[in-house]
């Protein structure tokens, strides 16, 4: 446990990637199995369970520390694990501390097999026996919140380097291919990396393949988009998913590789390998059945085997009713039907297509699509465009759409093979114009992490009957300089304080950009914005000229 805590502490403060991978490689070469495998899991975020809940940490510290002092400390530090790691002190009636800390593997196994009450005592004993940085590492590990500037991708790259240092001819692609088929504590993987064993066989397992991701399109790049080189598609407003159906099973993965099949039995349970067999890339959306003339309008999907029912993409808000539901009931499923819009295929009927070009993959996908029977599976068809002007008007079309079901455009190089990660110059996303309102800052709160010494989270409101009603919260969109100005303004214009929240003079207008707005009964204003961010700070604008709530309601 000491070595692990030291590793994450050093990684946290180290800025150069070279030094980071050196630290990790050194740790791997000096640490025995299974400890090092658990460390990989902790850093890569592949531990499958929490050792304890955040609530337990909060409860324990509340029993030990004066609540006022705790709140002030938390407000200052801005982060729970770190606050607790500094505040923690042994109590007289605690079980005795340990002379020597257990190994990482022992910690993992004890929490995994312990009952709740036992885990509580074990956690107390560990915390009592540790230094503040060790406590921090344990709390982060146990709640799976370890963020130390090492991405899963970077870790895999380091694992490949480690293998090369051991004399094995293994690339990061090799690691990627098997990564989702192996599990902590990664003994087989590490043996393979060190040249002591064959590559683990993952062909039979239903595994997630890391996705190909896009870059935002810049104005310069727009000029270089030619119809001969690029394919344009709508960017749908759902969640990115990967559908995997093989002889060994079937699963729906989120963009980060979480298995979300259990939330969508209406899709997964229907699928049969005789009709669908492969790995597909697409968007999960909520659908509204709708009887309509069959003429093509944007966002209305062609019906399948049914001449009457057409499906219209429903709002993201509707999709949210279905997300993170472990066991959705029949009523929820029938009220909020969902479907997939497929836009790429990584393998089809046993054939790996990742080395094929986009054009070839799209063609294979379209051919297969003609034969598939499921009414909830749709195809994203490439859009016609000739030049920059027609692209601009397509985007304008998305901007003008009343409902927000199309977020903008995707532009993909026709000759690009399917690569995991975010390769340069292959895929671009070009979002539609955001919606804008002028709102008034009402409250401010300190940020987290690097921003914990700044007031960087702002609650803003719109007018109704001469009063401001909060309509949302934003903590991004401004530059570092603007943050300093906003922070100073908040400090100079504070009129009240509620715990960590400062109430400010209702005098500063913020132009807020957002993607869409939805009805919400959780907010007093009755509306909720999606992705609100500060677009401009209107130092010039008087607060009484900010927007009224009705303006926002009209955008629903």
């Amino acid at each position: 446990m000491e070595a692990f805590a030291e590793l994450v502490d050093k990684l946290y403060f180290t800025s150069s990637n070279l030094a980071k991978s050196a630290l990790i490689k050194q740790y791997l070469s000096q640490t025995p199995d299974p400890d090092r495998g658990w460390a990989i899991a902790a850093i890569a975020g592949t531990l499958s369970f929490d050792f304890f809940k955040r609530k337990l940490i909060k409860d324990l510290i509340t029993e030990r520390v004066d609540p006022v002092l705790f709140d002030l400390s938390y407000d200052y530090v801005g982060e729970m694990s770190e606050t607790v790691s500094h505040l923690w002190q042994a109590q007289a009636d605690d079980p005795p501390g340990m002379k020597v800390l257990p190994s990482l593997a022992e910690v993992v196994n004890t929490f995994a097999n312990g009952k709740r009450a036992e885990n509580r005592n074990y956690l107390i004993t560990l915390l009592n026996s540790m230094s503040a940085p060790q406590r921090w590492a344990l709390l982060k590990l146990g709640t799976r919140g370890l963020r130390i500037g090492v991405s899963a991708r970077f870790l895999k790259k380091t694992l490949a380097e480690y293998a090369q240092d051991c004399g094995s001819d293994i690339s990061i692609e090799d690691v990627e291919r098997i990564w989702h088929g192996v599990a902590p504590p990664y003994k087989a993987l590490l043996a393979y990396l060190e040249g002591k064993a064959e590559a683990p066989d993952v062909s039979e397992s239903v595994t997630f393949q890391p996705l190909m991701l896009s870059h935002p399109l810049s104005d310069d790049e727009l000029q270089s988009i030619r119809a001969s080189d690029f394919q344009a598609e709508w960017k749908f407003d759902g969640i990115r998913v990967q559908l995997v159906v093989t002889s060994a099973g079937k699963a729906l993965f989120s963009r980060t590789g979480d298995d979300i099949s259990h939330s969508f039995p209406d899709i997964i349970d229907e699928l049969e390998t005789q009709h669908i067999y492969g790995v597909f890339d697409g968007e999960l959306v909520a659908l509204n059945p709708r009887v309509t003339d069959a003429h093509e309008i944007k966002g209305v999907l062609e019906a399948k085997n049914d001449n009457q029912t057409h499906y219209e993409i429903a709002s993201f808000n509707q999709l949210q009713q279905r997300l993170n539901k472990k066991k959705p009931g029949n009523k929820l499923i029938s009220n909020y039907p969902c479907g997939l819009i497929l836009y790429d295929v990584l393998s089809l009927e046993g054939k790996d297509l990742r080395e094929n070009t986009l054009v070839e993959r799209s063609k294979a996908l379209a051919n297969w699509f003609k034969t598939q029977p499921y009414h909830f599976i749709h195809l994203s068809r490439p859009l016609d465009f000739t030049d920059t002007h027609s692209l601009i008007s397509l985007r304008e079309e998305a901007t003008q759409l009343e409902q927000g079901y199309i977020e903008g455009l995707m532009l993909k190089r026709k000759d690009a093979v399917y690569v995991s990660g975010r390769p340069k110059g292959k895929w671009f996303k070009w979002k539609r114009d955001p919606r804008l309102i002028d709102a008034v800052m009402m409250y401010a709160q300190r940020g987290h992490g690097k921003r914990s010494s700044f007031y960087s989270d702002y609650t803003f409101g719109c007018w109704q009957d001469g009063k401001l009603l909060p309509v949302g919260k934003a903590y991004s969109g401004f530059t570092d300089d603007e943050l300093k100005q906003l922070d100073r303004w908040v400090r100079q214009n504070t009129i009240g304080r509620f715990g960590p929240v400062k109430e400010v003079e209702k005098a500063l207008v913020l132009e807020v950009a957002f993607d869409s707005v939805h009805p919400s009964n959780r907010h007093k204003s009755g509306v909720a914005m999606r992705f609100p961010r500060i677009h401009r700070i209107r130092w010039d604008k008087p607060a009484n000229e900010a927007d009224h709530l009705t303006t926002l309601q009209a955008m629903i």
Partner: protein
Amino acid sequence: MHPEKWIKTDKTGLYCRALDAYIDPMHPVKRAIITHGHADHARPGHSEVYATPQTLGIMRIRYGDDFCEKPIPMEYGQTRSIHKAQLHMVPAGHILGSAQAVIDYKDYRLILAGDYKRHPDPSCPPFEVTPCDVFVTEATFGLPVFRHPPINQQIQKLLDSMALFENRCHLVGAYALGKCQRVILALRALGYNKPIYLHGALLRLCEFYQENGVELGELIPVSELDNPKVLAGELVIAPPSALNDRWSRKLPEVMTAMASGWMQIRARSKQRRAELPLIISDHCDWSELIQTIKEVNPRELWVTHGREQALVHQAQKMGYKAKALSLVGYEEDED
């Protein structure tokens, strides 16, 4: 007469009617009592300045000979009658020359502690506990999350890193007044006898410490080197502002360390881009603040600046009458 009747605060700072003087004022005033030489406490342009000889010396170095019209040295323990009250200075243990201002007026004693600490510091006499009616304290690190480890442990971390990365130039960010000299003293105490290299901004104050009998060993200005490459494996101290600027880019394979009490908080270390955070403070941590309140045991506690809300709450819990003065203008940075 209760000090509430003869002390007030305004935009210039804390004003004592009985002395007709401001203590550590923000703006030029007729009569100033200065607790110590940090720039946010000791500003130039006053008419009369009452301070310890060392503090006056520091002000002279920083602002030139005409930093005020009339400097009046106050040796520790020496009492002067000013206007209607008595003033004397008592060591505060913060930096060389730092003092608590003890004011006696009409059967009441108020102590303005200025910045102070209780951790041992060989560069200045230790904080002296003096009984009083009202104790005016700072609360820079006035939260229970702040626990400053012993300085030797932190300096050992630096020495360990120098042993591990023996070719890297270790650059330590430390404030010019107090922190820098304390880091050097701790290095010497742990047996680091090689020359220590200094950024130009630190030279004059190090010399001043040496003139005042604080032995710092061999110090070499970086500017005197023909080739900065010889600094591979050596130790350089610079003001924090120089850590990430052009100046530090000429150093070979820099490992950036930062010596400050704030380094305990991860986000603060990240802001400084410190790869080796050294938690070294010239202020009290939470337990030292509480220890001091208990030992001074005043009838009343006033808190000038910092995390005053938490310390006031804690003092009230301990049964003291306490309030926050919320003075503005004292920087968090020179810690």
